[in-house]
């Protein structure tokens, strides 16, 4: 559970950090809504050469170490340039960009019958930047680093939760990673991750059925690291590349330069087009100035992209004015996040009470407070259309609760539901991290509940302490601000996490055994389409139980210089497909 919470923290922290801008890390649109139409089209054959410049407000990368990297846009960036994984997502706009393809492996993996064991075979010619061939042992070593939780912090911990390695009494793995010396059960790890004799095939033995483990290995946490070059914590500053580029300079607070990796063999990699000669990241840029440079589009800035989203005040300029200058230079589509308010079932056990809260919610006010049309669309569940196989309209706003609920809320229905509950509605408290946008949302929630006669007290919490408090059952109140994005493109990283009993982000404190059993069944379905149908049903059931107030399917906006080619919203990570970008010559 602890690990899972940390995982939740990472993604959710991104949500909170992005509160001022519309969302921190970009997003994906699977876009039957036509939002991808606004982008520069799909992946096309580009021109080689030139330098792509990326501007960022950050002082440095959160992490460059693949096992510690977790943010979607970071993965999108490094997976395109320096970090190869067994599988990855195709470079394409729209739904095609969610397709799983083989990267370092020859195919997208082979599972045994109940998906408790997965094998991947490495291609010929894959190598590190120093020319040494990448073998199964390197991938295995990379995976082992995740277990060193005291050194390799902040990364995803799926290796720990999925691999078939015994747990110690405190719930941690008996294997403590490659740096631990005494009392470390390395044999258990060797049994869980096995290499074939020729060093080409890696087999992962899992402690449960994981039907989508081949999606899990898209995370850089499953990428190879040469044991001889591993410097533990400081590997973060000196990673060894396996992709078409290598880091030639990384000065925090100033710049990072990626240059071509001479030892990368194009024949071993039909995924990365590797168009530009060089990629330069300029750190510590003023966000407003970043936007202005791209708007002005001076010759030296024409091959420039931005990390993260635009400043809200520039959105109208770039998007609504129909300015031909920005044609084909923008995207406006789904980010990875669904924003919702968790309803604490341990304090509100009466389902009619919870339904009344959902019915009373004025999401029109919510969306306005988040920034209007650019913020996104009203959500109807916790699964969003950027998971095309797992999303289906839940029908919550139709007549699931007995009447239609418009975006402005239906206070009359809420009052009726409270009456039907047979108990008076208790006074509620809404907890939220104290930042300018969440504050306005809190006011929106308070005023929508007041319209239905529900009394809400607002409890702002210092952002750094927020998750510590709301995850403490003693301190958690009835309503809590939340947001979530999937870890890979499957609702298996959404529904079980948010509403499952072992989920790491179960703010609603759902303890429903029947529902849990259905989750476990769904996790075992190998047929991805069938599994998607199961998630659709579970999403609907969650809405019937009113465990959350769904607010918003978030959107993200970005734009780039006029000489950048292949700019589009990559649904896989909700950002640009950095590895596919080229400079028009």
């Amino acid at each position, binding site marked *: 559970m602890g690990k899972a919470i940390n995982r939740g923290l990472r993604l959710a922290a991104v949500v909170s950090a992005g509160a*001022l801008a519309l969302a921190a890390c970009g997003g994906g649109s699977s876009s039957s809504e036509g939002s991808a139409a606004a982008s520069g089209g799909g992946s096309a054959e580009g021109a080689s050469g030139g330098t792509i410049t990326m501007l960022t407000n950050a002082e440095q990368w959160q992490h460059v170490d693949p096992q510690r990297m977790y943010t979607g846009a970071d993965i999108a960036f490094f997976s395109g340039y320096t970090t190869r994984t067994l599988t990855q997502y195709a470079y394409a706009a729209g739904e095609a960009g969610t397709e799983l393809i083989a990267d370092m492996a020859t195919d997208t993996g082979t599972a045994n019958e109940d998906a408790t064991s997965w094998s991947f075979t490495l291609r010929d010619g894959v190598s590190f930047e120093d020319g040494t061939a990448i073998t199964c042992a390197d991938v295995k070593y990379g995976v082992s680093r995740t277990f060193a939780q005291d050194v390799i912090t902040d990364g995803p911990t799926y290796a720990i939760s999925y691999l078939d390695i015994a747990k110690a009494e405190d719930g941690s793995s008996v294997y403590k990673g490659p740096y631990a010396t005494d009392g470390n059960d390395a044999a258990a790890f060797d049994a869980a991750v096995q290499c074939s004799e020729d060093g080409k095939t890696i087999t992962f033995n899992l402690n449960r059925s994981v039907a989508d483990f081949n999606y899990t290995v898209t995370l850089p946490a499953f990428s190879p690291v040469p044991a001889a070059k591993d410097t533990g914590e400081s590997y973060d500053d000196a990673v060894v590349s396996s992709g078409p580029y290598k880091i030639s300079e990384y000065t925090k607070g100033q710049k990072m330069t990626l240059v071509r990796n001479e030892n990368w063999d194009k024949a071993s990699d039909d995924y990365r087009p590797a168009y530009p000669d060089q990629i330069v990241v300029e750190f510590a840029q003023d966000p*407003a100035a970043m936007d202005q440079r791209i708007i002005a589009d001076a010759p030296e800035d024409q091959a420039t992209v931005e990390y993260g989203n635009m400043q*809200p*005040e520039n*959105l*109208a300029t770039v998007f*609504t004015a129909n300015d031909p200058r920005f044609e084909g230079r923008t995207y406006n589509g789904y980010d990875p996040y669904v924003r919702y308010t968790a309803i604490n079932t341990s304090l509100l056990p009466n389902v009619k009470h919870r339904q009344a809260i959902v019915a009373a919610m*004025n999401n*029109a*006010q919510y*969306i*306005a*407070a*988040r*920034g*209007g*049309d*650019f*913020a996104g669309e009203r959500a109807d569940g916790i699964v969003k259309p950027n998971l095309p196989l797992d999303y289906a309209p839940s029908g919550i706003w139709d007549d699931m609760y007995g009447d239609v609920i418009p975006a402005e809320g239906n206070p009359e229905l809420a009052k009726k539901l409270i009456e039907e509950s047979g108990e008076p509605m208790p006074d509620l408290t809404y907890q939220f991290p*104290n*930042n*300018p*946008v969440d*504050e*306005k949302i*809190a*006011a*929106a929630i*308070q*005023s929508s509940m007041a319209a239905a006669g529900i009394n809400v*007290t*607002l*409890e*702002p*919490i*210092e952002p750094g*302490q927020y998750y510590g408090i709301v995850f403490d059952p003693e301190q958690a109140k009835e309503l809590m601000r939340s947001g979530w994005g999937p870890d890979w493109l499957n609702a298996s990283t959404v529904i079980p996490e948010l509403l499952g009993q072992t989920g790491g982000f179960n703010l609603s404190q759902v303890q429903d055994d029947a529902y849990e059993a259905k989750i476990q069944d769904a996790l075992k379905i190998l047929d991805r389409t069938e599994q998607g149908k199961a998630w659709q049903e579970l999403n609907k059931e969650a809405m019937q139980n009113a465990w959350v107030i769904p607010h918003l399917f978030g959107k993200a906006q970005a734009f780039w210089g006029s000489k950048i080619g292949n700019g589009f919203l990559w649904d896989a990570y909700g950002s640009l497909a950095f590895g596919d970008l080229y400079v028009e010559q």
Partner: protein
Amino acid sequence: MSTDTTVPPAAAPPPSVSGAVTGLSLRQLAWRRLKRDKAAMFAMWLLVAIFLTALLAPLITNLLGVNPYDFDLTSLDPAQGSLPAGPWGGASLDHPLGVEPLTGRDLLSRLLFGARVSLFIACTAVIMIAIIGTTIGIIAGYKGGWLDTVIGRTTDLLLAFPFILAILALSPVLTQRLQAMGLSPESSRVVYLVLVFAFFGWPYLARLIRGQVLSLREREFVEAAVANGAPTRRILFREVLPNLWAPIIVYVTISLPTLIATEAALAYLGVGIVEPTPSWGKMLADSVRYFAVVPTYLFIPGTALFIVVYAFNVFGDAVRDALDPRTGRNVR
């Protein structure tokens, strides 16, 4: 106060019986001087008006048919990122000063209600500062000795403290504590701000008062009272304190606007009043983010704050001149 006209009230001449020359108390003399200062009188009436408006805010907003809490989405433009629709920050007959971005709440009513909160915090804190600072200053100055040393070092410590940083760091902990004691999140913030302002504000006044008391205690009327066997309490409160009103009033009038501005600064740093309650500080903090797109928003709380700070400064200055004419600009 070392003017020759300074006479302790206890020894003031008896009220005039009749005749040509009327004796005036120090206070009456000061009031006369103050009344002659046109700028001061203007500032005073301005302050009275501001306080009245703040006090009667619910009545005024009711009459105007506005409300600081109601969202008005019709006044926003969703295609522009929920910015106010129309020029001048969405100013219209319904919303004379425009509306708040993202929510459409009426700015006039938020300004009036915000005045209540901001003035309440500043006034309460300044009263506490006056009481604590004066008491400690008198004790330190009159008693002297080790007590003076201890108080002196304590004030040094507090004066040297980076208090904005301390306020930011203590905020989450202390507001949680206050809530655990049963206060609502909202009142806990107000109480917290008042307490920290008082805690970090008194040393300045205590310093000032101590210095005054040091010279006062050597004066003849104090020595006379001691010789007559008056108890210490009587000496402090009847003989010494009345001579301290001038520095206290001046300090209060000057620090009050500073506190309002500090509240604004803290709101900007995220240690402010809880939604949906408005305060000037919060409005300022919020409006700064929209300065490029809705410049009028910043000018509303900014102008209000400017007027109050200006009025207090002019008034405080004039009060000082009136109480201590030798230093005043009117002398020359």
